[in-house]
């Protein structure tokens, strides 16, 4: 009798555990579906002809599939131009941003100089400043120089020097973590400080720099607010400006809007998926402490 009871208990315990597991997985998977349904619906809408847009019930998986929306956005709307503009701006801006941030972070991590602690405290204190506060004065500064208005170079430079405070704060932790004897050995070998930074520190920090570059790229590629103030000619617009203007004009043609949006989203998604294994590693090693 007793023996039987024990077996029963074990069975129900195992059962309970597997029921728990089933619930656990179900919740995780339902959550994940809620995360991707909007994207699936976006892709499927971009493949629908106009006539299928307003059917009821809405089609999550379209019965008629067409690629003509993409072709139309490319040929008639000229999304290639916006794509090119976004690239021309984002690539140099990211390079400037990462280079400048890493120089600053390394200076703070490795060297002692007068006022170092005060400067770093000021950097940290202004992390809480909303970007909103800066827009009007920054626009005033740019708009008083005629050459800088309606000029893509302005966006490259301003995006390139933006966000230094956060980036320096983010990178400093990694640079401090690099073993001191590697640096000392290089110094004995006759490297000067800039060579040490360039030949040893940067290669050692590639995952951190890569993560920063991806964050920086995402922010610059997607920025709408600032370029919309500076770039007045349509021929200089970036993807967000072009697509929002198109949506404002042809709002209900969601199939076309989403075809354009997907073209614009591809670079960020591709970069993220290619480098995703670095993220958790980088962030857990970094100094995310305030």
């Amino acid at each position, binding site marked *: 009798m007793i023996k039987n009871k024990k077996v029963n208990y074990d069975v129900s315990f195992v059962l309970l555990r597997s029921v728990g597991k089933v619930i656990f997985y179900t919740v995780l998977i339902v959550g994940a579906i809620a995360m991707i349904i909007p994207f699936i619906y976006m892709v499927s809408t971009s493949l629908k002809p106009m006539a299928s847009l307003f059917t009821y019930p809405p089609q999550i998986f379209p019965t008629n599939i067409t690629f003509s929306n993409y072709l139309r956005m490319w040929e008639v709307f000229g999304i290639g131009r916006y794509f090119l503009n976004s690239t021309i701006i984002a690539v140099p801006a990211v390079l400037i941003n990462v280079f400048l941030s890493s120089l600053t972070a390394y200076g703070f991590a490795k060297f*002692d100089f007068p006022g170092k602690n005060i400067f770093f405290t000021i950097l940290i204190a202004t992390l809480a400043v909303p970007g909103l506060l800066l827009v009007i004065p920054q626009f005033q500064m740019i708009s008083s120089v005629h050459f800088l208005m309606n000029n893509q170079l302005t966006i490259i430079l301003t995006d390139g020097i933006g966000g230094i405070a956060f980036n320096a704060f983010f990178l400093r932790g990694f640079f401090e973590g690099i073993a001191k004897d590697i640096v000392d050995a290089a110094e004995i070998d006759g490297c000067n*400080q800039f060579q040490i930074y360039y030949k040893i520190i940067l290669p050692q920090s590639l995952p951190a720099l890569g993560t920063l570059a991806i964050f920086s790229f995402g922010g610059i590629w997607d920025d709408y607010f600032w370029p919309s103030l500076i770039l007045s000619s349509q021929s200089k617009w970036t993807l967000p400006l072009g697509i929002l203007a198109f949506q404002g004009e042809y709002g209900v043609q969601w199939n076309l809007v989403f075809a354009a949006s997907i073209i614009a989203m591809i670079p960020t998604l591709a970069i993220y998926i290619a480098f995703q294994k670095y993220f*958790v590693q980088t962030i857990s090693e970094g100094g995310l402490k305030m």
Partner: protein
Amino acid sequence: MKRSTRLKVVGVFFVLPGLISYFGWTLYPIFYAFLISLYKWNLNPDLPSKFVGLTNYIAMFQDPVAGTAFKNTILYTVITVPGQMFLGFLIAYALNKKIHGQTTLRLLYYLPVVTSWIFVSLIFEYLFSGYGGLVNYIFHTNIQWLSSPSMAMIPIYVLGIWKGIGWSMLIFLAGLQGVPPSLYEAAQIDGANRWNLIRHITLPLLKSTVMFELVMLTIGGFNVFLSVWVMTSGGPMNSTQVVSVYMFQQAFDYFNFGYGSALSVMLFVIVFIIAQIQRRWLKSND
């Protein structure tokens, strides 16, 4: 030159370019914004700007739209920040274990984070459209989400939480990796249940992570802009007006730069005070 002096000079050279651009492009504009907010400001340097003292601030307190904008911005932060942190923590906790499809699930949850606010806002505008929108279809409702003043903030909240869960999850995952598994084992032997483990071991060890998330997400919440701009532009009848959108409209549609600056300074003051309180509060909880 002595070695230590030489190193100091080199150090200054390393930080100089970054500091110059920071002072010129961040610190100076902060003070400049305060200054502009005291003027009836004219962008054109040839036309005089008139000093008006605190007039813009007084006008702000008498402006019912500004009141709605601040109320909505604060509500948005109060609703979306705990939402993101709670769900982000749950998912991070679940995905911290070795389970099947761990990487794929992490990737799926993180997907909204890496997509631009503009495009996810466009998707949500479509999902929440009144006629034939997917949300109304799935829940068998017939709500004019974005065109009814009492409902229009809801899609904006949902989007804010949906987009931020992945980020919150990622930061919590990073924090959870620093919790040694041996601690759990010891507590389990002592007979602690799962809730006790979370409450007394995991969360205290994650304090700096929680603090970082709270501060960053609060700043982000107060800066809410593109989702409102794309989905409602602050309408219908200013019911979804938030500070950033209202500032943008005042400054760049009506050229009230002084008033726009006053709005942004006010927002900055609120964020700054809240960030200080959060820091104190979390530090005192040791």
